[in-house]
């Protein structure tokens, strides 16, 4: 009896392991097929990773340089980070150090609601509110689809992640350190800025990394609000296409299965996976370091 319970639990655990392995296997094998496809000798991993033109569907000669998709993703993620990191950290500081227990409970409920909003709603929010009412009044250069509106919406989406993970790490700073600082004649701001935030910093950085990883992989908001034109630009008022948005375009559009465009989305997915995997790994290493800090 005991033996079969253990066996059953092991089997269930294997579901996630096998899924992960299968996904990686599919990504790799499909990417290999993309790079070795007959009739496209110009496509190589090198030309893919360094190419600056991405036009898989237009023109007689499709071009597969992934950099415009990468910069599109980086641009939207950077904007999201600039929105979410300062607001999220300062909210976490407020919740952890300043807010009364009652206020904290209230605000954490609001944050949980924010975390539960479907991302398609944020996409509409970017398209129908942020761009027309916040951005376009500032400058006429903002189009209906632009990186800025999408970036701000992604930033709001990852705000609860930054905030709640940062707050966890600030609250994990031992009360004895706060007491030590107060006993030297620190004001509350001194204690927060000079002791609590520095002591919890590695946890805060891990929160940033995990939230940015989430932002990089975000799909619905950018598919709706960032536009569909892959261009190599750092101008946030322009439309950009991200790696995820391209995949949506291919799989929802009428690209023939097993065609070159279809296969290209696996190579893009592989690139995206490598980036997010690296960031998750870095986040985990930083988190581990911070756990050891007070021992």
């Amino acid at each position, binding site marked *: 009896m005991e033996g079969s319970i253990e066996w059953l639990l092991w089997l269930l655990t294997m579901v996630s392991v096998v899924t992960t392995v299968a996904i990686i296997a599919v990504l790799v094998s499909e990417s290999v097929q993309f790079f070795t496809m007959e009739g496209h000798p110009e496509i190589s991993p090198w030309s893919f990773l360094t190419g600056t033109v991405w036009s898989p569907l237009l023109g007689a000669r499709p071009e597969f340089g992934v950099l415009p998709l990468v910069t599109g993703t980086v641009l939207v993620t950077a904007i999201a980070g600039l929105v979410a990191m300062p607001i999220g950290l300062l909210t976490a500081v407020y919740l952890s150090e300043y807010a009364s227990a009652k206020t904290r409970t209230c605000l954490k409920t609001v944050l949980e609601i924010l975390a539960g909003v479907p991302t398609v709603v944020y996409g509409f929010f970017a398209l129908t509110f942020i761009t027309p009412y916040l951005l376009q009044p500032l400058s006429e250069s903002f189009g209906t689809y632009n990186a800025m509106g999408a970036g701000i919406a992604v930033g709001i989406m990852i705000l609860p992640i930054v905030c709640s993970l940062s707050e966890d790490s600030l609250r994990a700073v031992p009360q*004895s350190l706060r007491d030590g*600082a107060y006993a030297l004649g620190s004001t509350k701001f001194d204690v927060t800025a000079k002791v609590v935030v520095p002591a919890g910093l590695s946890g805060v950085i891990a929160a940033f990394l995990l939230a940015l990883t989430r932002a990089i992989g975000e799909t619905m908001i950018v598919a709706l609000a960032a536009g569909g034109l892959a261009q190599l630009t750092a101008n946030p008022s322009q439309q950009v296409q991200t790696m995820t948005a391209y995949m949506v375009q291919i799989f929802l559009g009428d690209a023939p299965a097993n065609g070159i465009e279809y296969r290209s989305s696996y190579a893009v997915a592989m690139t995206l996976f490598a980036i997010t995997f690296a960031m998750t790994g870095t986040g985990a290493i930083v988190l581990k370091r911070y756990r050891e800090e007070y021992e």
Partner: protein
Amino acid sequence: MIRLDASAPVTEPFPTPSTAPSPPAPAGGPSPDLRGAEAAPTRAIEMRALCAWYGSHQVLHTVDLDITAHRVCALIGPSGCGKSTLLRWMNRMNDTIASARASGSLNLHGLELLDPTLDVVDLRRRVGMVFQKPNPFPKSIFENVAFGPRLHRSYGRTDLEELVEQSLRASALWDEVKDRLHHSALGLSGGQQQRLCIARAIAVDPEVLLMDEPCSALDPRSTASIEELIRELRETYTIVIVTHNMQQASRVSDTTAFFDEGRLVETGATDILFTAPRERRTEDYVSGRFG
């Protein structure tokens, strides 16, 4: 030197005018040994009818106690007797506990410490504290000591280095850490960390140093070095120490106050209180029969 409740007989080794306001304590610097019969010791802290509560639970009942400048005063008593609470009112650390309140009078050189409008930041610069468990900041040794001084004014690099060295010398830590000032304080042993916390506290040049069971988390050797340090620091600072260790109280303190169930039972010169206590409860406690 300590006075007892008005009702109890008073053993006063030092004659002190009981009604005259306390003159200010000598500022900083080593002071002459005041224990000679001709020296008039000054009272650093005066408590009158001090009561304290956490929520509706009263933890201190009408405590009258004087603490003499440049002496070591030990607060002893069983767990929960209110001695740590008393300590935490002397630098208003109880402000961090929402349900804590107090009545009566607690006076530091004429400054009423229970005044709700008191500038607690300034008070805590004047009344330093060392905690039960060493709590160095996760910063370098240098940054730990420099933390307090930098809160209160800006220093030039060399002034600050000098102050850090002085403070570390005063806490008998300098020789052990002078070659690794910029290493993390968390790499020090428990006893070294506690001496670092003492260095950190005296770097802001306080008048009073409160110590809440400073050796309870340390091994015997580290405890001995802290006790030796306390005896040296008495020259410069008024020290109030809470301890559960009777031997420690008798080794380091000049006066002892015994608390039980929130009341001051007996107070007086340490040697007298330990050898010839007036109260039965004191005798039972110091001889280890309860608590």
